[in-house]
């Protein structure tokens, strides 16, 4: 008989040594790539194919390529087999900015930098009213950007409404940055400073009023500063290149969400008129190709609008692309809405929330978060689809790339510009898709 003491003592058995020779790299390769005759042949074939493709591509694009030449003939003389990147480099400016005047291109750069800078405070968690930053980016930045890109004397050539909104946008941006700096310095923000002032006028919702006061003061100041500035006007017809592609894509992407939300809610509505109307719009827009919608916008809008109202081609295209991407987004969002359990609706009802509050506070945030992968896929396809505007004659990056082949110095230079913008689109789209996978993983961890 064992004693209790013996029983309770834990005697670990010595661990077995790992089989060191079990999975060396060579064995792993053998077990995966050469485990049968068929698989071995496949491996060799794939290796050969990969080698051939990479070898050919590298030789063409790097080793035999010409980087400096005056025209295509010179390229051909130096290296007939390789790529002629000289033409693309020569046209690089055109590919980026289209026919935007050379000396004004800093405005485009500034506009893009401002658009990114507007969103930077989102990364700072201590700043107040972070959701306002995103909303203002959608609602206010376009006015500032449009004035910057279009030019003209501030307040004179732009309309009154545009001037007001541009000042508001500039004021808002200044406010965000001042608040950010103050938050970094651990000082009370401007809004807090204006709080006693606002409290003197009204007792309710003083935070909002103090925000409004600061914003208006800053808007008036920045409006006054901007009114001293006169930028040479640039017609919309001269916009082009990657710049135009990004404008159309980002406009369609940002607009597709609110349009999609409205259409999706309408489609799930119990009111038959609204349900059928939204269903009709979604299904019609999704059943036809984008190019027909673009043609419709360009040829039919002038017929259906009053004869004295003239829209430029860009706004027609923007209308079409927004409708189209909104309809696709609506189906994504509908999927998200359907995935929200009934209990969430009932809980919101129990709390006494009305329809819009239920949707805005409870349902939509969850639905949008659930649908992030699909929404990102939609964004990527919108970005890719913007190349279609070249068919109806907008000078986006695609049409600029095709135009290089018509330049008298670079006649017939088709492949290299296309290869270059293919790489550009690949980097953009692949980056977006990897980011969305990353985002999805991160959100899953949080749950």
């Amino acid at each position, binding site marked *: 008989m064992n004693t209790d003491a013996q029983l309770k003592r834990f005697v670990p058995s010595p661990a077995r040594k790992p089989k060191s020779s079990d999975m060396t790299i060579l064995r792993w390769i053998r077990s*995966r*790539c050469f485990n049968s005759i068929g*698989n071995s042949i*496949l*491996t060799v074939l*794939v*290796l050969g*194919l*990969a080698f051939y493709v990479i070898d050919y591509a590298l030789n063409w694009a790097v080793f035999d390529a010409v980087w400096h030449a005056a025209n295509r003939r010179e390229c051909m003389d130096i290296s007939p087999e390789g790529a002629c990147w000289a033409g693309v480099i020569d046209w690089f400016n055109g590919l980026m900015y289209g026919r935007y005047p050379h000396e004004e291109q800093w405005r485009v750069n500034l506009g893009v930098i401002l658009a990114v800078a507007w969103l930077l405070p989102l990364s700072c968690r201590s700043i107040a009213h972070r959701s306002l930053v995103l909303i203002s980016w959608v609602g206010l930045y376009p006015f500032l950007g449009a004035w910057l890109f279009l030019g003209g004397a501030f307040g004179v050539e732009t309309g009154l409404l545009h001037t007001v909104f541009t000042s508001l946008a500039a004021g808002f941006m200044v406010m965000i940055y001042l608040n950010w700096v103050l938050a970094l310095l651990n000082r009370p923000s401007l809004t807090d400073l204006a709080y006693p002032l606002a409290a003197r006028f009204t007792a309710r919702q003083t935070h909002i009023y103090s925000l409004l006061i600061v914003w208006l003061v800053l808007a008036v100041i920045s409006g006054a500063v901007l009114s001293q500035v006169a930028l040479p006007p640039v017609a919309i017809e001269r916009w082009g290149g990657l710049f135009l592609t990004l404008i159309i894509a980002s406009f369609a992407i940002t607009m597709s969400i609110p349009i999609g939300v409205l259409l999706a809610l309408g489609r799930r509505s*119990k*009111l*038959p*008129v*609204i349900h059928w*109307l939204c269903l009709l719009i979604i299904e*019609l827009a*999704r*059943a*036809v*190709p*984008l*190019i*027909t919608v673009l*043609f*419709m916008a360009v*040829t*039919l809008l*002038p*017929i*259906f*609008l*009053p*004869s004295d109202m003239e829209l430029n081609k860009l706004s027609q295209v923007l209308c079409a692309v927004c409708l189209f991407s909104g309809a696709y987004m609506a189906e994504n969002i509908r999927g998200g809405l359907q995935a929200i359990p009934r209990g969430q609706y009932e809980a919101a009802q129990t709390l006494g929330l009305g329809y819009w509050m239920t949707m805005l506070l409870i349902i939509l945030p969850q639905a949008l978060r659930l649908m992030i992968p699909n929404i990102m896929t939609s964004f*990527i396809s919108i970005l*890719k*689809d913007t*190349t*279609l505007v*070249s*068919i109806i004659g907008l000078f986006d990056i*695609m049409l600029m790339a*095709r135009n290089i*082949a018509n330049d008298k110095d670079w006649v017939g230079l*088709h*492949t290299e510009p*296309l*290869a270059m*913008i*293919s790489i550009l*689109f*690949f980097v953009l*789209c*692949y980056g977006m*898709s990897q980011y969305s996978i990353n985002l999805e993983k991160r959100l899953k961890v949080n749950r």
Partner: protein
Amino acid sequence: MADYSTQQRVMNEASAPPVRQRGWAGLTSFLNRDSTRGNVIQGLTLLFVLCLIVYLGSNAAYNLDRLGMMFGFDFLSSTSGFDISWSLIPYDPSMTYWRVFMVGIVNTLVLSFNVILFGTIIGTIVGILRLSSNPLVAQLARCYVEVVRNVPLLIQIIFWFTAVFSALPPPRRGYMLGDLFFLNNRGFYFPSPQGDISFFWFLGAFVLFAAAAWLLRRKAQQARINQTGNHKALRTGWLVWGVALVLACVIGNGFIEWSVPALDGFNLEGGQYVPVAFGAAFVAMTVYRSAAIAESVRAGMESIDRGQHEAARTIGFSRFQTLRLILIPQAIRAIIPPLANSWLVAVKDSSLAVAIGFPELVSVFMQTSINQTGRAIEIISMVMGFYIFVSLTISYLLNKYNARVQYKVM
């Protein structure tokens, strides 16, 4: 007991019809009712839409009047007067706009049918290769899918058109295969049956033999079930079609005259050909579609439980048998809906061939015909109607098929 009755009374009160109030209170309670609010919102929406339609319509009427144009479909019967570079049905400039519409539809359908067929085949193969246990094969398939998916289709179409197909040598120095198939910078030439009648003989014979063989096979199957009670299918499926085809060829051969393309001066004469634009659009779209289909096939295959693989291994199935008998039949259920969507997109994407001048519907009807006649409203509604019809048809058929392959819920 008292508690219970109180509760009962409260419940009774709650379910009693609302007391009809009078005066202002009645009005506000009426306005606050959900049904009233819904009706008001719907009425306002309807009114807004009607006003919009009337407004747009009156604008259109005014603008058309100002430009001296009429609304109507009478232009369809007038002569088009322009040529179309390639059409499968007979066409010449003296024919009507209705014929132009038909040519566009046929060209669009031919292009998208080929894209769907080959895109599905290649996509299925690539999708299965992506799941290969051989890392080299899987990574190569992954590279293919990622590269193809992340470059806009339009760029790919133009790339194939300008960099590959238009760069082919001229007819005299073009590629040829056994004096029957020719590939050059004008297009792809191949032999075609000459004359309509002989070809229909062949087709008729094939259909006849195929039907007869199918009936015979069904009878044999029934006999087998009756005699042995064995429900296993006869393994003669392919044989039946093969025999029918051979018989039809033997019968039809006497009637078919093949027209073979041959060099004549600087060009090829005879046979049938597809233009370079078709080739570029076809290759680019097939590659693009196959990548999308590969992704849905992979997703479908990955949705199957690992236990199914293991069970199949346990009963001694080979890798190919597992795929054919266990995995694909189950994966089909998850693959069909995205596949249907992919096919729809393929038909819609065929409109991009307009960028390289392939005469499909958008190109011949929406571009050229609108320029010639100015009948934008009619033409655009016809083209959109066609696409809507096609997408409704495809989604209807695939929904039917989908309903058949899904699990039956009792």
